[in-house]
C-alpha cells in the first residue's frame, strides 16, 4: 500500500527560501511521489502514463516528471479520490460556450491550498489582515454553492483581508459610496486591493478615465490575476495597465499573479522588477512547441506548471496553453530565490481547414 504524500511540513518553510538547486531536489521527490500516487488511484491518469511508457525510476529532474495537458480537466472527471471523499469541486470560469474544468478537492488538498496561499500572501502583505477592497461585484460570490473561478478566487483571497468591501455594484458600475465610506474608515492605513485583470481594466480603470475621476489609493497594494487575453486584444499591456492605474488612483504597488483553478494555491507572484516568481511549492518549465523539449532560458515556449498541492486530482504537472519565457534563476534583483519568468499570452487559435462547418457562425 502506497502512503499518501503529505506536504503539510512544507508550511514550516518560507515561500522563497531555497535556491534552484535545493528546490529542484525537493520538488522532484515530491512530484515523483504524487505521480506514483495518482498512477495508483486515478485510472485515466494511469492509462496515460502507461502509454507514455515513462520509467519512473529514471526521473532525475523536475522536467522529467510526466505532464498532461490542462485541457483534459475540461473533458474528463480526473480524480484520485473516491466520490465520497470529494469536499468541494472547483470549476474554471471558461469563456462563453466553452467547457469548464472540474477540479475535485478532498479536505487535505483544499486545506493545503489555503495554507500555502496564506504563506505566499503573508510574504506579500505581511501577517496582519489589511482592509480589503475587491474590484468586482458582490453578485459574483452570492451563490456560495457554485464556485466559479472568479467567485472562488475572490472568496479565497478575502481570507487575507478584513472589512471586505466591493467597489462595483450589481451592474458592474463603480459604487462610489461604498468606496468613499471604505476609504474614510481606513484613512492612512495600508489597504489590500484585489481583482481580476480584465475586470479591473474594463469596469474600474476605463470608467475612471472616461469620467475623468481620481481616487486616493496611495497606501494600497493591488493584487490582480486572471490573464491578459482580453486586454492584449485591446493592446493593453502591463505597463499601460500600471501607469493608467497610477494616474487615476495613485496606486504604486501593482502586483500581477499567475495561477489557475487547476492548481489553486501555488500562485506565482510578480516582483517590483515585473518578473513572475514561483514559490518553493510550485515550479515552471517552458517547453518548445512540438518536441516539448525544455526550452533554453530566454526562449519563448509553452508553459508547464508543476505544484505539490494536487493530491486529490492528477494536476501536479500540467501543460498549459500559455506562452512564456524563463528569464533566469536565483538572480532577480528583487532578491527572491528560484526561477523567474514572464507570461507572453495564450497560444493562438489556428484557423481550421477542412470540409466541415459550412455555416460558420458569423
Amino acid at each position: 500500500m502506497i502512503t499518501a504524500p503529505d506536504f503539510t511540513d512544507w508550511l514550516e518553510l518560507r515561500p522563497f527560501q531555497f535556491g534552484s538547486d535545493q528546490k529542484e531536489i525537493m520538488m522532484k521527490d515530491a512530484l515523483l511521489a504524487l505521480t506514483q500516487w495518482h498512477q495508483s488511484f486515478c485510472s485515466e491518469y494511469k492509462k496515460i502514463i502507461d502509454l507514455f511508457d515513462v520509467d519512473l525510476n529514471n526521473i532525475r529532474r523536475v522536467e522529467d516528471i510526466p505532464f498532461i495537458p490542462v485541457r483534459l480537466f475540461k473533458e474528463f472527471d480526473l480524480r484520485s479520490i473516491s466520490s465520497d471523499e470529494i469536499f468541494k469541486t472547483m470549476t474554471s470560469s471558461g469563456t462563453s460556450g466553452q467547457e469548464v474544468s472540474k477540479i475535485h478537492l478532498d479536505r487535505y488538498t483544499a486545506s493545503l491550498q489555503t495554507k500555502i496561499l496564506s504563506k505566499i500572501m503573508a510574504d506579500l502583505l505581511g501577517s496582519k489582515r489589511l482592509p480589503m477592497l475587491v474590484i468586482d461585484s458582490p453578485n459574483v460570490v452570492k451563490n456560495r454553492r457554485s464556485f466559479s473561478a472568479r467567485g472562488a478566487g475572490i472568496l479565497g483571497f478575502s481570507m487575507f483581508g478584513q472589512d471586505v468591501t466591493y467597489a462595483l455594484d450589481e451592474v458592474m458600475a463603480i459604487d462610489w459610496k461604498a468606496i468613499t465610506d471604505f476609504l474614510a474608515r481606513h484613512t492612512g492605513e495600508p489597504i489590500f486591493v484585489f481583482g481580476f485583470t480584465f475586470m479591473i481594466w474594463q469596469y474600474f480603470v476605463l470608467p475612471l478615465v472616461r469620467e475623468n475621476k481620481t481616487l486616493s489609493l496611495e497606501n494600497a497594494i493591488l493584487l490582480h490575476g486572471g490573464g491578459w487575453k482580453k486586454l492584449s486584444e485591446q493592446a493593453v499591456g502591463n505597463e499601460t495597465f500600471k501607469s493608467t492605474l497610477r494616474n487615476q488612483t495613485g496606486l504604486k504597488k501593482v502586483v500581477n499573479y499567475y495561477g489557475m483553478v487547476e492548481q489553486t494555491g501555488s500562485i506565482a507572484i510578480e516582483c517590483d522588477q515585473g518578473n513572475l516568481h514561483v514559490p518553493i511549492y510550485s515550479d515552471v518549465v517552458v517547453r518548445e512547441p512540438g518536441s516539448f523539449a525544455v526550452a533554453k532560458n530566454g526562449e519563448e515556449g509553452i508553459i508547464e506548471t508543476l505544484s505539490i498541492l494536487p493530491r486529490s486530482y492528477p494536476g501536479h504537472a500540467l501543460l498549459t496553453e500559455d506562452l512564456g519565457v524563463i528569464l533566469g534563476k536565483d538572480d532577480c534583483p528583487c532578491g527572491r530565490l528560484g526561477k523567474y519568468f514572464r507570461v507572453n499570452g495564450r497560444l493562438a487559435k489556428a484557423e481550421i481547414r477542412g470540409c466541415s462547418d459550412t455555416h460558420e457562425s458569423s
Partner: protein
Amino acid sequence: MNLASLPVELLAGSSLHKIQAQTLPPYSEEAIRFLAEVSSRLLKSPEIREYPDIAGFGYWCRRANLSKLALAFDKKYTRLGRGLAFHIAPANVPVNFAFSFAFGLLAGNANIVRVSSAKHPQATVILRAMQELLELSDHARIRRMTSFVRFPRDDEITKALSGISDARIIWGGDATVNRIRTMKTKARCVDVCFADRYSVSLLGADAICDADAESFSRLIVGFYNDVFLLDQNACSSPHLVLWMGNEENIHSAKARFWDGLSEYLDTKLEEPAIHSVDKFTHLCRTAIWLQPINQNRSQSGRIYRVELEQLPVGIENFRGQHGFFFETTDNDLQMLTAILNARYQTLTYYGLDPQIVTRLVVENGLQGLDRVVPVGMALDISTVWDGYDLIGTLSRLIQKI
C-alpha cells in the same frame, strides 16, 4: 417570395431574381468554353504561385480535361440539366465552391452558389476571373444561369433558395446537412449531401522497402498532400494506416515511411504551437478511450502515431488532426472488413492491387468506401466524388423508346 429583396451580397453573375433556369445538356459547349476560359485566366494569374489550390482548380477545368470527362460520360441517354442548382459551399476548403459550381454547370444547370463568409483570398481570385468573363456577351447565356452570393448564416435566405431549387448541393458535414434537409424543397428536388466521412490508407510494406528514391519521394509528397494540405480535416484525408506484409518488412517499411515523412515535414513551415498541444491532448484521450499498445511521436512532434492491436468499431469517431494516425497490421483485411461502415469514404493505397479492396467491399456487400485511389490522390476532386456521379445525379435523362 421576393428574390430581389433577399439581403445577399452578389459576388459574380446575375442577381438572384434574374436567374433563368434554362438548362443545357451535360458538357455543353457553352459550359466547357466558359470553364476553359476561366482555366486559362487562372493559370495565367500571378496568385497561383501562392495558392496551389487555385492552380488545382484551374488545371482541372482546362478544356483538355473537360473534353476527356465529356468523352467518358454516359451517351446512352439524352440528358439535360435538372434546372436550378443551389450550392452551399464549405467554409474551410477555399476552392470547393468553384468545383461545386463547375459540376452544376457541366451537368447543365443554372447555379446559385453560396460562397463562404470566410472571405478566402482564393475565392476572390476565382470570382474575379469568373466575373470578368461573365461580363462578356460571349458568355451571356452562362451569366443568366449563374449567381455567386454571400450571406451570413441565415436560415431564412437558405429556406427561400431551397424552395425554388431543383437540386441542392450541400457541403459541410452531418450537422449542416441535417439542418438544411429540414427545409422545404420542391417535391422533385434532388439533394447531393456531403456528410462527415472517414478515410484510411493501406500500405504495402514490401513495396515501400523496395521503392527507389524517386518513387519513395513521390509517395511521401503524395501522402503529405493527402494529409497536411487541409490539416487532416478533409473527409478524404487518411486517419488510419493499415499495413500489409510480413512483420520484418513492416518494421522496416514503417521506419522508412515515417522517417521520410518527418524529414519532408521539416522542410515545411512550422506548425502553429496550438496544434502540438491539440495532438498531445488527443494522445491522452486515446490512452483513456482505447487500449493502444504503443505510441510514437516524431522528433518535431509533427507526426503522432498510436499503435492498436485491434481496431475498435467506431474508431472513426476518434479522429485526430494535424498529423495524428492510428496504425495496425491487417494482412487479411479482416479488421478493415469489420469496421467498414457508411462513414468510410476514401482508401488510399500504395504497393498493392486495389482490386483486393474493391472485391472485399463488393463481395461482403459493405456500405463503406466510395473511393479507392493511389496515395497522393485523396483530395483530387472531380465529377465522381463521395460515391456520386455528380453529372449524372445533377442531370435528368430523357427516355425515348
